[in-house]
């Protein structure tokens, strides 16, 4: 397999808050002599600017969650970081949280970097009241007297239109939407610079989903955090994200401003994804994409989309397409697209 990737284009920005360079994270197992190497994140580069909401979209098993876990430093076997680096503006020099010493990680977490997860039930301890969760997570960072801390928590809850009485509740006493809002309050109380949000609204009803998303974008406006928002729901991306990266089989295949992706998708996969979305008030028949996403333990050589791609050429089967800036601030990894642009 020829893996001659030319130098990837990287957005030239003065100071991104988070930059990921050629990150590779694999799940490696070696049991009973059977070696498996699942390339869940395979050479991803992107940067998140200060104060922006950066979206990542892709199907399940495209590596979105692994990527966000690696950025958060939650790297435990069988997951291994094989190469590349993650740089935060507030954590220079280490090349990622997974390489930083434990004391440094404890200083960063919640204060500079926080994480909103999909199942809010699993984040909160079911046998402790929410007040204890706030004390556990945020008190070491905020400090001061307990009374003062409590006043600050209540003020923060009020900002998110949550009643202070939730502090006395156990997680199971709250509805799914309330719980997710409480975890968002928890994740934002220390005013972190970066918030990682992994499918924050997937389990919620549409009306509650809109509220929660409104809350995330309100937080961004108010405290100026950058948000890395991962979800497979393109409807969500259309409404809240500034820029959007599309992932397929462990690689970032396209990146541009969200409006640009929807208006002018270039990669055949993205183009298909956008055109297959049903819209209310539009009766045009849509076509499904044939085939299934590749097995990441044994991905096809070359471009990983080529077995399903309508534009596949000979070169796609042999070489990995480089991610090039095809249009201004629009990066695409596709031979067919980049060739026709050159011509």
């Amino acid at each position, binding site marked *: 397999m020829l893996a001659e990737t030319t130098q990837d284009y990287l957005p030239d920005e003065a100071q991104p808050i988070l930059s990921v360079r050629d990150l590779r994270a694999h799940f490696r197992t070696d049991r009973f002599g059977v070696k498996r190497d699942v390339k869940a994140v395979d050479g991803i580069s992107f940067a998140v600017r200060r104060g922006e909401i950066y979206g990542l979209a892709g199907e399940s098993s495209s590596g979105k969650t692994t990527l966000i876990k690696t950025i958060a430093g939650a790297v435990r076997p069988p997951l291994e970081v094989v190469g590349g680096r993650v740089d935060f503006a507030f954590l220079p020099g280490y090349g990622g949280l997974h390489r930083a010493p434990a004391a440094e990680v404890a200083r960063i977490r919640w204060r500079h970097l926080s994480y909103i997860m999909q199942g809010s039930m699993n984040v909160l301890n079911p046998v402790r009241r929410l007040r204890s969760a706030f004390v556990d997570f945020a008190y070491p960072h905020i400090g001061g007297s307990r009374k003062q801390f409590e006043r600050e928590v209540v003020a923060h809850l009020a900002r998110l239109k949550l009643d202070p009485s939730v502090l006395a509740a156990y997680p199971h006493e709250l509805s*799914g939407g309330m719980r997710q809002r409480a975890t968002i309050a928890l994740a934002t109380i220390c005013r972190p610079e970066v918030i990682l949000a992994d499918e924050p609204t997937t389990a919620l009803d549409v009306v509650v*989903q809109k509220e929660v*998303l*409104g809350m995330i974008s309100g937080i961004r406006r108010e405290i100026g955090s950058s948000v890395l928002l991962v979800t497979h729901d*393109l409807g969500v991306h259309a409404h809240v994200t500034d820029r959007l990266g599309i992932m397929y089989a462990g690689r970032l295949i396209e990146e541009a401003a969200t409006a640009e992706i929807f208006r002018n998708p270039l990669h055949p996969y993205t183009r298909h994804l*956008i055109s297959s979305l049903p819209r*209310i008030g539009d009766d045009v028949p849509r076509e499904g994409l044939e085939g299934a996403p590749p097995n990441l333990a044994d991905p096809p050589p070359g471009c990983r989309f080529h077995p399903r791609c309508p534009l596949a050429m000979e070169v796609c089967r042999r070489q990995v397409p480089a991610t090039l800036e095809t249009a201004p601030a629009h990066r695409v990894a596709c031979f067919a697209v980049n060739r026709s642009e050159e011509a």
Partner: protein
Amino acid sequence: MSDLLLDVCQVSKTFSRGGLLSGQRIAAVKDVSFQLDAGRPEIFAIIGESGSGKTTLSRMILNIETPTSGKLRFAGVDLATIRTGARRLAFMHKVQPIFQNPFESFNPLRRLDGYLFMTHRRFIAADWRGTPETAVDEALHKVGLSLKEVSRRYPHELSGGQLQRVAIARALLANPKLIVADEPVSMIDASLRISIVNLFKRLRDDLGISIIYVTHDLATAYYVSDRIMIMQQGSVVESGDARTVLNAPQHPYSRQLREAALLPNPQQAVL
């Protein structure tokens, strides 16, 4: 009455919880009525959020749950009178379910073709001239798969979309008149979702199967369904032609749902 495929007549379902003294009664479905015409196969969408009673209603249509009051008739037969195993089998022959999570509807330790052959044996083996393999292969072809792809495979070896299609093929083997699909695409990726939804359209047009499509996703409901019914806390708040209702919802709750649905148009971003 016999020209109605399904007649749901003022059906209610109340669940009681707790003891005799401190019991709590929860009305999951309140006084719901609708009819499906036997001569005109259609896709009928039931829309609602969690807790709206849409799953309880679909379970009553499948005769898994009995209504507290009201009547359900399938092709003129009152579902409450179906007591014997033989009559239940005859009912299941005509009404088949598809569930939300294909990974949960199949036992991970059993091979997929086993399910298909079992369904074949139960419902059509007596009338089938060819080998069971041809019957199963034919059903799989209707959903864009073949026996060769599925044979001897376990559920984890297939993707969610493929697995959901196997579940649909299994339902088709019984040669049903009605398929009740409870959130069939919510666990499936966007790129595969549309192919399942297109498959429903094909089943309606080519095989004349009516489909009850239970969902919370307004966009796919608009795309496939002929009629829709919006439920809130057990009651129907609005129903009618899918295009009319979704283009101009009348009830405040339907309007709220319509506005909360995040459509993929960044130009009209609301957040």
